[in-house]
């Protein structure tokens, strides 16, 4: 079975640890890289070509720009922006234009997003 490849780029260390704790032990998910440095994200995406990128939604105003840029360049990838303080995170994917969907900031919310890959790539 091909694993779901995830790059974890949450800058706040605690949220990164919690996301890794959530997905790190799942048999169908592979963490292909992690970084706290957002300047490295594009380079890592280019090199690792993950299925999913997980970033922090702690600066909501800059997220649409970053996600739009990345999805324009890597439309096959999907992005989950996890909010550390809210119960609602944002899922970004490309579908002619950029689509977003709110998902619950929870372990199940994150895993559901990652595992719904097949359904969501129907574009």
């Amino acid at each position, binding site marked *: 079975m091909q694993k779901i490849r995830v790059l974890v780029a949450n800058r706040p260390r*605690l949220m990164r640890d919690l996301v890794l704790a*959530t997905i790190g032990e799942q048999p169908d998910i592979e963490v292909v890289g992690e970084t706290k440095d957002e300047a490295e994200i594009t380079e890592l995406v280019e090199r690792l070509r993950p299925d999913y990128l997980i970033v922090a939604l*702690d600066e909501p105003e800059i997220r649409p720009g970053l996600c739009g840029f990345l999805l324009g360049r890597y439309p096959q990838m999907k992005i989950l922006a996890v909010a550390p303080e809210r*119960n609602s995170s944002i899922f970004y994917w490309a579908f002619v234009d950029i689509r977003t969907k709110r998902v619950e900031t*929870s*372990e199940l919310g994150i895993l559901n997003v990652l595992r719904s890959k097949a359904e969501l790539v129907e574009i």
Partner: protein
Amino acid sequence: MAVATDNICVFILAENRLLREALTRLLSKKSDIRVVGASAFSPQVVEQISAAAPDVLLSDSTAVALSDLQLIPEVRGAVPGLKVVMIGMEAEPETFLRAIHDGVVGYVLKDASAMEVAAAVRSVAGDEAVCPPTLCLALFRHLATQRSQAPNFHFKHNLGLTRREQQLVQMIGRGLTNKEIASQLNLSEQTVKNHVHRMLHKVGASDRLAAVELCRSQGIFT
């Protein structure tokens, strides 16, 4: 059945579900920590925490944002000996200082690792305080400010003088003798002397005129 008593019992109070779930998962892996409950904020949460009787409450900073509700002080009142560790989402001195004021003894930021959160739980359980270095300066400055304001604050609260003693010091300031004061207040002269003696002791003055000057300079009366 013997029950292990050396585990640190932790209750996780966080609005964010991921924080609750993943912290529970991570802390439960530690052999010396037992998560006895986890909850978001609700009107019943004090009861829930009280029933779980944790040693340590691990909370996100929403509890401070809700400080008007006095949640942390109420929980501390309900669970004697409870230590509170807070996860601050931002390194804001104001939030940090409000947390300390509410009785929080451990503070970690979202840039802390999960290991550091566990270490903070252990530290407060061992009667230590935990404070991020970036916020220590804010604490020192705050205390220094408090100190420099302390005499004023103290005097504004009348140095612990009773209403009668405050009344006396004002009458002394108007130049009345003990006998005159006794007459005006319908007290015996000895009672007035006793009041004056206690008042001098409280303000730390050597004589009645020094006490008047001290109280006047600090605005207890003009």
